[in-house]
């Protein structure tokens, strides 16, 4: 569809897309978790993410002209119209890769939403107040797992370190500035992403040290998600997410 949202809408879509794409990815664990309790845990996390995405899409869509609903935003945009971080669209890999990704993102998301509870946008502030409680719970869970795997067996340590090394290049995107995040910061609707970096590094460093995991030394970071440029995995995730509503656009449950 024709789609050229303003900066304010882009910012809300970025938040919503992060929640939706991660929720969609995590839901692939349903029925495949290493044990029942962890299967339930990761699916609960997916459910929270999708719930947050719905509230954010509703808010974004209401402010558009013409107004769009949550389904139109989730199911009828194309790949380059999604503004999520590329890390969140990567395949789940093993349990270590899923939980290390979750830990990196949860920690960022917690710090971000903590600031969004002071947003100048009242609806966003309300959504953030609700979401922050859930994100705090996720962040505690994923940090515990990183420590458990890093400080666990030789095999779990190796897998956790592999996951850290593999995912680290995707963390740079969290702190990039672009048109919509700069505009949101000027409006005092959201923090400037780069302001979150020292706090994120402090938390992440502490957990990696406790887990006995090495922080990669890296000069180059992945980029593109905020501009709608994605990895080769994004098309497949949208194909699975969107095919049914696109095939039957007026379908009712």
């Amino acid at each position, binding site marked *: 569809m024709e789609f050229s949202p303003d900066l304010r809408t882009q910012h809300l879509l970025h938040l919503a897309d992060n929640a939706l794409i991660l929720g969609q990815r995590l839901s692939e664990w349903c029925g495949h978790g290493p044990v029942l309790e962890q299967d339930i845990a990761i699916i609960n996390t997916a459910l929270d*993410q999708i719930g947050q995405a719905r509230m954010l899409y509703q808010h974004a869509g209401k402010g558009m002209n013409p107004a769009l609903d949550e389904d139109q935003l989730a199911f009828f945009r194309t790949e380059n119209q999604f503004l999520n971080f590329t890390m969140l669209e990567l395949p789940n890999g093993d349990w270590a890769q899923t939980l290390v990704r979750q830990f990196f993102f949860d920690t960022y998301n917690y710090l971000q939403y903590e600031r969004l509870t002071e947003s100048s946008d009242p609806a966003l502030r309300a959504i953030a107040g609700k979401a922050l409680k859930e994100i705090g719970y996720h962040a505690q869970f994923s940090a515990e797992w990183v420590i458990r795997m890093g400080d666990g067996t030789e095999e779990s340590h190796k897998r956790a370190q592999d996951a850290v090394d593999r995912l680290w290049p995707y963390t740079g995107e969290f702190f990039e500035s672009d048109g919509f995040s700069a505009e949101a910061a000027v409006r005092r609707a959201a923090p400037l992403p780069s302001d979150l970096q020292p706090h994120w590094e402090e938390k992440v460093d502490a957990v990696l040290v406790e887990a006995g995991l090495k922080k990669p030394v890296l000069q180059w970071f992945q980029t593109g998600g905020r501009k709608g440029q994605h990895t080769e995995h994004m098309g497949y995730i949208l194909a699975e997410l969107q095919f049914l509503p696109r095939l039957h656009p007026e379908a009712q449950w």
Partner: protein
Amino acid sequence: MNSGLTERVLAVLETVSDPEIPVLSVIDLGIIRSVSVSEADHSIHIDLSPTYSGCPAMDTIEADIRSALTSAGFGSIHVRTVLEPAWTTDWMSESGKRKLEAYGIAPPEKRSGDKRALFGKAPEVRCPLCKSTRTTRLSAFGSTPCKALYRCDECLEPFDAFKCI
């Protein structure tokens, strides 16, 4: 404000239960934030606060509220979802907590979600069956978004506990 009518609405809401935890009414759960009945046309306005943003029971709860009030003879029912302030388990009624424990679910602690989120320790949870506090958290998440899974180390029964948020 017509207080007699408001009380009748509240009495109906006491009969609407959480579909996942049928011993709790929506009043016990603390998700009804306000009820008002218009003096002019007797239309009812209810503010509802979701427990979890993705909780699939919320749509059912809203439908159940409409259907209970319609059956009780009320018309023109407006249910609005309010996010702020965010729902907390502190809003659960004391009688709701007692009903939960009798049903086999450990009720939430008084103190709700706090800043220990990133590195918090789990609170002490009492086994709803034998009342021992020697319990172990098996999973931070449970059968619905609002619960976690525990085991009693005294009577060895597994049980659900309400998450504190």
